[in-house]
């Protein structure tokens, strides 16, 4: 990193803080989504720490970047407070409504601020929160069809998404490294777990989409995809998977970019987040509900291609509800194909992967050691466990 920062054009950063992020975690609520939970958390004595995390990042950024960045932020506890605490000059944008109390800040406020930063053309949006906040950021940018680069500063209870730095300080280092290199970006997953299920001791992740994150050598939490090394393997994974699929069967293609690579080798358009159906080398239907999936695949052998989602390696169950019990009962053990890059498997610590289905018979069918396709002529043997047995 021998580039002189002084020679580079100044960086413009938009910062938005979700002040209630992480509120539930400190009092054992495993999440902070919804005002009922937030009130409960405060009643249990939770104190917000998102502003402190944001201030830490800003303090570090000031040391690393000196005056090489301009900061835009949302009013009061949505960013302004953090800037003040870190002694960083910030321009407060008035697009977001000013929350008067902690609980009056809403998802809409986060989204308004993000949309405003995007319209102003900032280089990077920093947001402080957890997976719920990540979903808000994703939704706001998706509405604008924007590929703005974002980076999450971890302050939430759950961080299944692959767009968070590993610590508030690390976020500043990532920004500096990214700024001093060529400011390239890559895709990171926006995933979230089903909080209700989690409070009942069940793990279930859902993939909501992808956001662009800074491409640096520094790892983010959870799965980053699209790095140069995994790109080489994804093609091999897709080819291997296609060679194992029975063309006469109805093949359900699950969500995510790795499965998407499989879809790209078939004819027809596919959906990134929905469940599509392939038959005879062609994608015949996209983004179907469980009823539609049952109808279209009636009487045919059923195969299923999935990739683990989120930081815990969740395969299916409550996360992708389109795969209902009726469908799953028609999928034989050897007809489930799991695709995953070695890099992501490593981030999952080499397993286990998880499923969550209510029927004991199905739990038995899909758990135990299972081959995961990791490249051309290449598989890994990974344990699949019942998500209900995970200690919450």
């Amino acid at each position, binding site marked *: 990193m021998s580039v002189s920062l002084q020679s580079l054009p100044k960086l413009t950063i938009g910062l938005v803080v979700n002040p209630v992020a992480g509120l539930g975690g400190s009092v054992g609520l495993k999440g902070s989504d919804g005002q009922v939970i937030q009130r409960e958390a405060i009643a249990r004595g939770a104190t917000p720490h998102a502003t402190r995390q944001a201030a830490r990042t800003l303090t570090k950024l000031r040391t690393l970047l000196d005056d090489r960045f301009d900061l835009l932020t949302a009013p009061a506890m949505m960013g302004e407070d953090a800037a003040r605490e870190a002694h960083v000059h910030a321009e407060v944008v008035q697009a977001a409504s000013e929350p008067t109390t902690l609980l009056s800040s809403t998802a809409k406020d986060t989204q308004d601020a993000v949309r405003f930063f995007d319209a102003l053309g900032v280089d990077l949006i920093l947001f402080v929160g957890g997976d719920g906040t990540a979903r808000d950021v994703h939704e706001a940018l998706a509405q604008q069809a924007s590929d703005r680069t974002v980076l999450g500063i971890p302050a939430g209870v759950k961080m299944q998404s692959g767009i968070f730095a590993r610590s508030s300080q*690390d976020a500043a280092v990532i920004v500096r490294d990214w700024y001093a*290199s060529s400011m390239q970006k890559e895709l990171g997953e926006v995933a979230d777990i089903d909080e209700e299920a989690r409070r009942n001791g069940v793990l279930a992740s859902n993939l909501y989409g992808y956001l662009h994150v800074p491409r640096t050598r520094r790892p983010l939490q959870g799965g980053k995809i699209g790095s140069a090394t995994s790109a080489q393997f994804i093609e091999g994974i897709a080819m291997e998977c296609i060679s194992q699929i029975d063309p006469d069967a109805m093949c359900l293609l699950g969500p995510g970019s790795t499965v998407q690579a499989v879809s790209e080798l078939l004819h027809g358009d596919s959906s990134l987040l929905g469940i599509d159906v392939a038959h005879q080398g062609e994608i015949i239907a996209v983004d179907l509900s469980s009823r539609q999936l049952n109808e279209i695949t009636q009487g045919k052998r059923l195969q299923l291609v999935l990739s683990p989602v989120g930081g815990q390696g969740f395969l299916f169950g409550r996360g992708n509800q389109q795969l209902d019990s009726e469908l799953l009962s028609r999928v034989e053990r050897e007809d489930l194909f799991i695709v995953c890059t070695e890099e992501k498997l490593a981030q999952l610590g080499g397993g286990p992967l998880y499923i969550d289905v209510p029927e004991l018979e199905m739990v038995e069918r899909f758990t135990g050691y299972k081959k995961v396709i990791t490249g051309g002529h290449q*598989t890994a043997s990974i344990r699949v466990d019942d998500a209900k047995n995970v200690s919450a």
Partner: protein
Amino acid sequence: MNGQAKEFPFQKSLLRNYHAPRWDEPLVFELNAPGHRGVVLARETDEDLETLSDAPEKLVQRSSRPNLPEIGQAQVLRHYLRLSQETLGAVFNVDIGQGTCTTKYSPKVNDKFAESSLSAKLHPLQDVSTAQGTLEIMHSLQDYMREISGMDAVSLQASSGSTAIYGAVKAVQAFHEHNGEGKERDEIITTLFSHPSNAATAKTAGYKVITLYPNENGYPDLDALKSVISERTAALFITNPEDTGIFNPDITSFVDAVHEVGGLCFYDQANANGVLGITRAREAGFDMCHFNLHKTFSTPRASGGPAAGALCVTEDLKPFLPGRQVVQTSDDRFDWSVPDETATADIRPFYGVIPNLVRAYAWIRALGPDGLRQVAETAVLNSNYLHAELSKIDGLTVPYAEGEYRIEQVRYSWQSLAEETGISTGELGQRMADYAFHYWTSHHPYVVPEPMTLEPTESYSKRELDEYLTSLRHTVDEVRNDIEIVKTAPHRSSIHAIDVEATTDPETWATSWRAYRRKYLGEVREEPRRWIAPEGLPMRERAAKAHHR
């Protein structure tokens, strides 16, 4: 004198004030000076031309001159001297930081034997009657390898460890083909922390590779193995202890399970430093094993040039070994064996890298059986010392089987330091270069986050181990007090930080002068002539050719 070591006040610090030379040396092609010559030969006479007119060399003479730079002899010497000064100098340096690559000292006296005209100037086609001494050395080396591994037959043909492993894969293939199961048995099983050449050579030979991942103890469950073995299993290729330094205690059950389904078992002993003279592949039930002679038997690391590997097998696999072995004839002389019809094709031309085989022979002879065992014991002791001292550093953890010592190397993790400070293991390594040390992370993917793998072997003194530890502790202090100096390292090495992204992007590679001219000097490259398919012939679509070369 009371027998106590005297402490000298002027003793140098354990932290080196190192600084590498930086020459900014041009590429040898850029030194091209038309008309300059290394050696000026006498002009040929008419008589010479007459003599040479029907010389066999005429037949292989190039039609055009090779495009090599024209440089004077002294300039060439200076060029390579400067390049050599810009390296950290493996073998002579303290190579503790080369974990899994296992670099140890190569005794200089052994070079004397290797350089002897009796081995260095041997021609592969000369009559065996004139090479009896060298053949006897090879015959003895085969015997020693048999004794050390417990196996029945040895091939010394491989010119590297990975070539030997490839030879093993080909022998597995030949074995199953001979039994009529060549097509059915198309899977080779390995583990994530095994030598990556196990998976790589298996794939090269056309096998499907199944990788077992470690459990919380750092090695795969027997159940993981049992879930993938079948009538399609050709072999298990496994390293033990693995790259983490953890020994799989269930290894005999692994071997038994694979044998039960008719598969073969190969023990990768590229690095046998932790078990030399203590355990043998044969007793663990393996059918084959190999040694990298440079990792265990002190021959120099070849770094792309010729190294040497020894492939050892049981009697059942002997007919499938690649290359020829040295055999003793009835009149107590030595000769090359005649390969069986079932033998695997040669894995390199002729008989092996003789100078390295001579060095390994000399090393074994000098140490004897007790000395070999002492090598392993010292290597383990050195590693345990580093392990114990490093465990005291806040920010470093030793994943898997916590609190237990490893065998001859350890894979550490800086994850907690990374979370605290934002430093990465790669950046720590670049700072260690400022203290004249190598530093190795791990193979990819990083299952152990922010990994560092250290392997001290038996070669280094306690002071050298302490120098390494001091530099590492000092670097960690710097991370906490002045992280910028670490993040912008190296400062005192011969080169600055390289752009790692670029090294993974083939478009930036220029592995030849021609590629460099095209990619970086804008020279337009003429497309080489290629075969064009006749019209109407159904052809698979091919990706555009990569121009790396």
